[in-house]
């Protein structure tokens, strides 16, 4: 499977990654290798097989659901404990200009 430099830059941009020209070159090679490896799966005939995203299939209708009952949340102090930057009870991030 062929990967273009343009595709690498596009995916990097979606992932908020800044790559140097050198890294782009490396990514083209590495992504191509990975995709070629995964491409082996295409040797199997999977027509008529439903795609599977989850491993649990035959369960009760609502298995693993929960009732609408509150737990005690973490609270602000614990909630912000891992934040690199916080203030006034909020997470602080570099100013967001546009979405």
């Amino acid at each position: 499977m062929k990967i273009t430099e343009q595709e690498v830059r596009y995916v990097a941009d979606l992932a908020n990654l800044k790559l140097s020209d050198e890294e782009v070159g490396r990514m083209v090679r590495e992504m191509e290798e990975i995709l070629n490896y995964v491409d082996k799966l295409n040797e199997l005939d999977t027509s008529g097989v439903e795609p599977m995203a989850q491993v649990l299939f035959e369960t009760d209708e609502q298995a693993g659901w929960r009732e609408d009952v509150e737990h005690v949340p973490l609270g602000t102090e614990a909630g912000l404990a891992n934040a690199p930057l916080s203030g006034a009870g909020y997470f602080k991030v570099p100013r967001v200009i546009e979405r």
Partner: protein
Amino acid sequence: MSSSVEAGVPPEILAQYEPVIGLEVHVQLATRTKIFCACPTSFGAQPNSNVCPVCLGLPGALPVLNRQAVEMAIRAALALNCEVRQRSIFARKNYFYPDLPKGYQISQYDQPLAEHGSIEISLDGGKKRIGITRVHLEDDAGKSMHEGFKDSDRYSYVDLNRSGTPLIEIVSEPDMRSSDEAYAYLTDLKQVMQYIEVSSCDMEKGHLRCDANVSVRRRGADRFGTKAEVKNLNSFRFLKLALDHEIQRQIAILESGGQVMQETRLFNVATGETVGMRSKEHAHDYRYFPEPDLLPLRTSDAWRNRIREETPELPARKRERFASEYGIREYDAQVLTLTRAAAEYFEKAAAASGDPRTTANWVTGDLMGLLRAAGKDISESPVRAEDLGGLVRMIARGEVTGKLAKEILAKMFTSGESARAVMAREGLEQISDAGALEKIVEEVIANNPKQVAQYKAGKAAVLGFLVGQVMKASRGQANPSMVNEVLRAKLG
């Protein structure tokens, strides 16, 4: 395209075009807890206090679906006449924003909860069916604040209390042809959601949020024009303002020989205009894929049927029933079905009074007037429905006059007592005692010799005047039908 172009497109030009509008409405479900974790959804909590590893998006935390959120979403879908799928799939919608800690929203994509619905909206002079494309479940993001802090020039502030709040997104077909139709659609949609109690739809708290897809085409054209998506239409007034502005903007572009760009635009509340968001062209590549942490959402026939059976009577149906069953005017039926609380109040009062039409007048007139003045909702009415019904029954039986009833109702509103209790306390009980009435009648006859003579000379209409005098002398407390009788007898 600058905004000066569309200033004042002449009406005759506007009339040559037909707007085509579809709405995407997000409704916050009224669950106690979030959709994938058990954090409370309460409004106004200290920032970042209602949080846990799941809604903070901490590594390794796994979502667990809230049964009640699914049930409410199904109820909403059924009320919108949708087909609820037996099996739907959660999907990840990937994008970066600081108030989305997971880096993706858990939504539904190619296999949503429900599809193919419709809602009938009421318009001036008619009804119209608006198609519902789909209803799906998703989680809400947190809230970002870009203003109001001393270092807001450098930092944005993020509150994740809202992160993980359950939403349904209701997508309509592009079936609306004016901002008025869009307004009516949102009004009726909100009313249905409130009736079935899946959301309080409090717009100020963001429980109901609306985006619009807008395009215009020349009247008679088969194909839709290029659409723009207008975001941030979070009040009914803004919805209409923004749509009218956007419709004019697009017509102005086409009239000047230009082309409408497919883009996302934001409504600016301050200027009343929509403004293009300078997004990167691939900002909409969300790379949806099935959410591996959640099983397919399966709904049995039995469950769907039970929810369907439990769904209360919807407003449109109730309006029709009120008009046909109680014989009340369509306008009154509409006012009385605005909320479930009003409808229930009316039905209780009507049952107690035995006279639904008069009851309807008293509820929509005097009672609602008093409630408005006191800033109260009908669910908080100090006058109980049974007591209002009791008052109306007394009017119907001629035990109190309408005028006196107004005074009594005002006192009932203040004290919360029944009509009889107020009348007993205020000495307002009706004078039905023949002796007492005769005495008043005799006085009136003595004081009005001229009118008495006229009556005796054959001018029957004067009787009304004399009845009025008796009522006045009795401060409205005389039994009107008895007054008539006694007067006739005395005047021979």
